[in-house]
């Protein structure tokens, strides 16, 4: 019975993340104060900027869509005992697949283009995850190292392709030509207009719905199928997996393929939904934010969706902040986001022990001496 007492579920899932978030905001507030702005005013501006207007909400959910895809990617790998740092590169290459379908088959009807684009994004993302997975499964090369490396390889490869191969002739910026109208994801304001609801135009699009479908699919897969069960067994106890006739190498490869495929969903939102072309560095860090989102969301799809919306709000509120308060520039916003990632992700256990002890004391009815 020497295992530490556990936190009640509501504290584990609700209170602890809130404390972490609160501390991150306090530290950020101190920095804002040092810069000479009022922290309260800044946070208020961030909150209203992210959630106070239709436009803010639209942008928040649009950012959140990317984070849901990458967060799910990290979570599936995590359940198999793998730390996939490569969602960034997988999203980048996955987007290439989606983009190629949109560029070269984009004149087909949308009902055909969409499934093809989804499939291509998934296959390209999965293929990029396959190589580190195979190296881990067969050669024991550590997946953390290889997936990090593959982010750089992906970036270099995409730069080469955009500069030398896919670039729209006759221009300087390394971007492809625009997708044709059939290969554009319907925007939320267009879809809502069809059922008579008028909202402001934002980049929020159908990909958000696809992300939610993916989240539901991941939940069913992990907790309601025998393959998900095998994956969790291999992740929790690989000796028990071998005993049960589950092949850990096969699970490693399978989990990483699914992980990469999920990361590949980012292109649906970013390219088909917003940019309508392939351009440099479109994942812009969402693969790494996905790690924080998965950690904060306890690798559970519901938690991931909630955490993704929170990070979406941080992104949107942050850009509002740098827009309105001149002393807080773009980099300062990244600092605030970094603090949240640091405290909610990397240091999420810092407050667990004291909180657990507090609960144990309150429960034992002795109070705090």
């Amino acid at each position: 019975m020497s295992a530490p007492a556990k936190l009640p579920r509501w504290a584990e899932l609700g209170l602890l993340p809130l404390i972490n978030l609160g501390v991150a905001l306090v530290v950020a507030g101190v920095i804002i104060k040092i810069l000479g702005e009022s922290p309260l005013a800044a946070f208020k501006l961030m909150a209203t900027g992210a959630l106070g207007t239709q436009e803010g909400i639209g942008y928040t959910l649009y950012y959140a869509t990317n984070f849901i895809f990458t967060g799910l990617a990290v979570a599936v790998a995590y359940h198999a005992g793998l730390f996939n740092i490569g969602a960034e590169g997988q999203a980048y290459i996955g987007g290439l697949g989606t983009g190629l379908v949109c560029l070269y088959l984009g004149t087909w009807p949308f009902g055909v283009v969409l499934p093809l684009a989804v499939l291509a994004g998934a296959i390209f993302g999965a293929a990029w995850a396959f190589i580190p997975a195979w190296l881990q499964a067969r050669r024991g090369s550590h997946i953390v190292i290889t997936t990090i490396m593959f982010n750089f390889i992906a970036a270099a490869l995409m730069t080469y392709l955009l500069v030398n191969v896919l670039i729209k002739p006759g221009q300087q910026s390394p971007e492809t030509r625009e997708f044709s109208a059939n290969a554009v994801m319907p925007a939320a304001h267009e879809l809502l207009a069809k059922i008579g609801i008028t909202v402001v135009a934002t980049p929020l699009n159908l990909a958000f719905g696809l992300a939610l479908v993916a989240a539901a699919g991941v939940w069913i897969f992990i907790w309601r199928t025998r393959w998900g069960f095998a994956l969790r067994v291999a992740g929790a106890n690989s000796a028990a997996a071998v005993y049960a006739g589950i092949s850990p190498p096969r699970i490693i490869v399978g989990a990483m393929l699914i992980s990469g495929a999920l990361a590949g969903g980012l292109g649906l939102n970013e390219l088909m939904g917003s940019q309508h072309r392939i351009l440099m560095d479109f994942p812009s860090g969402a693969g790494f934010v996905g790690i924080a989102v998965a950690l904060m969301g306890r690798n559970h799809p519901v938690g991931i969706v909630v955490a993704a919306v929170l990070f979406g709000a941080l992104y949107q509120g942050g850009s509002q902040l740098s827009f309105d308060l001149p002393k807080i520039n773009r980099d300062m916003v990244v600092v605030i986001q970094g603090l949240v990632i640091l405290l909610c992700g990397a240091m999420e256990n810092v407050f667990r022990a004291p909180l657990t002890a507090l609960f144990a004391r309150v429960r034992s009815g002795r109070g705090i001496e």
Partner: protein
Amino acid sequence: MSKEPAAPPSTPPDAPPALELRGIDKRFGAVHANRAITFAVAAGSIHGLIGENGAGKSTLMNIVYGFHRADAGEIRVQGRAVEIGSPQQAIAAGIGMVHQHFMLVENFTVLENVVLGVEGGALLAGGLAAARAELGRLARDNGLEVPLDAVVSELSVGLQQRVEILKALYRGAEVLILDEPTAVLTPHEADQLFAMLRRLRAQGKAVILVTHKLREIMAVTDRVTVMKQGAVVAEVATRETSPRGLAEHMVGRAVLLQVEKRPAQPGAELLSVKALEVRDRLGVARLKSVSFNLRAGEIVGIAGVAGNGQSELLEALAGTRAASRGEISFGGRDLVREQLDPRARRALGLAHVPEDRLRMGVVAGFSAADNAILGYHDAARFNRGGLRDEAAIRAACAAKMAEFDVRPPQPELRLAAFSGGNQQKLVLAREIDADPQVLLIGQPTRGVDIGAIEFIHKRLIALRDAGKALLLVSVELDEILALADRILVMNGGEIIGELARADATEEKIGLMMAGVRAEVSP
């Protein structure tokens, strides 16, 4: 394990007890783990604390050692009330604990492990020299000889345990708690441990021996406290009690210490092994040309000192470890040549209860229901369409829990929340429920309490009587003698001899375990 006369009390009778617990009470949520526990341990005595798994022994000792804080009650050391909120405070109060699972840094030397945390200064050299001198004295006084400069991972389990005891003594322990110390020891190592404990007693230390083995209590303790369901149900002088009496206190009813069984009626050969060889990653042969067979309706026991190839044999048969050569014929197939994985072997009717339950047999963080389908999770009865049939999985687990008396009968409870005995009953239920022809079973009662041992032994014999073949690997010679119809003794990766149960005695087996071949011994 001969019983020595109790040492004369080395402290005057009016001296306060070395450790006294008064009204210790502890709840974990709904579980009342300790109910007003009161008992005292005199200096210069060995006190047994016995009870089934889940009786609250470990909780109580963890309170004494500062891992948990009692809800109510008082701990007194040498007559003084002390506040123990952490292991550091326990050590400062003169309490030392040797855990069942050792807390040693494997790639450090013995000396480095002993001084770890009490180096006494920024530079190691001075502390190490002082420790070397002090440990030399401790070794002379207590017979605790340990090679101080050996790396811990190269020591035998018995010696590692000795290092743990040295660690506690070096920190000035006057009260030494040992939690299930013999679970990992050979009978000979256990005897050495007991001799050591008697010497500590003679020096006036108070020793608390936490165990569920009656034999040990009878062999070495002066007094014994029996716990059941969180409360003390008896405290007696050891010489005034008997194993049967203690067992009744523990379980709350009369128990059979030796399960009755009829002579075996061996039938057709179900499994045969020819010249089986297993090599480890370094290419060293761990199993050398092992051949034997298993027939329907018999239990074949594999005896041997741990680490002589029994584990490798069991794993090679189950398919969790690859055999490098030889033949395993089962169900008309050659499992080695066809390289069948554990799942395929299970499908043929070869079930396996692994030796190390927590490492291999279960996933501690998963629910009991999930654990009850481990290895059978692909079976049609647990799936509907592409999805798991949650209702069927839960119902199957509930049925197994009812049949094998797993408590508490809650399929959704995390496996780690069950006691060792109940975990083992669930594993056994899972494997027997699949109706195997051959059951491989390693250490069936390791970390399992008396009530559950009786139950498990009965189930294994019932399985034999139903015409199945059982291969039993156990380091407990008593268990082999109680269950096996035929005994194979392993030494150095070989089967060194075979005995029919009727011819087997502890002496004969012991000789073979030590490597004396059957042919040469008359």
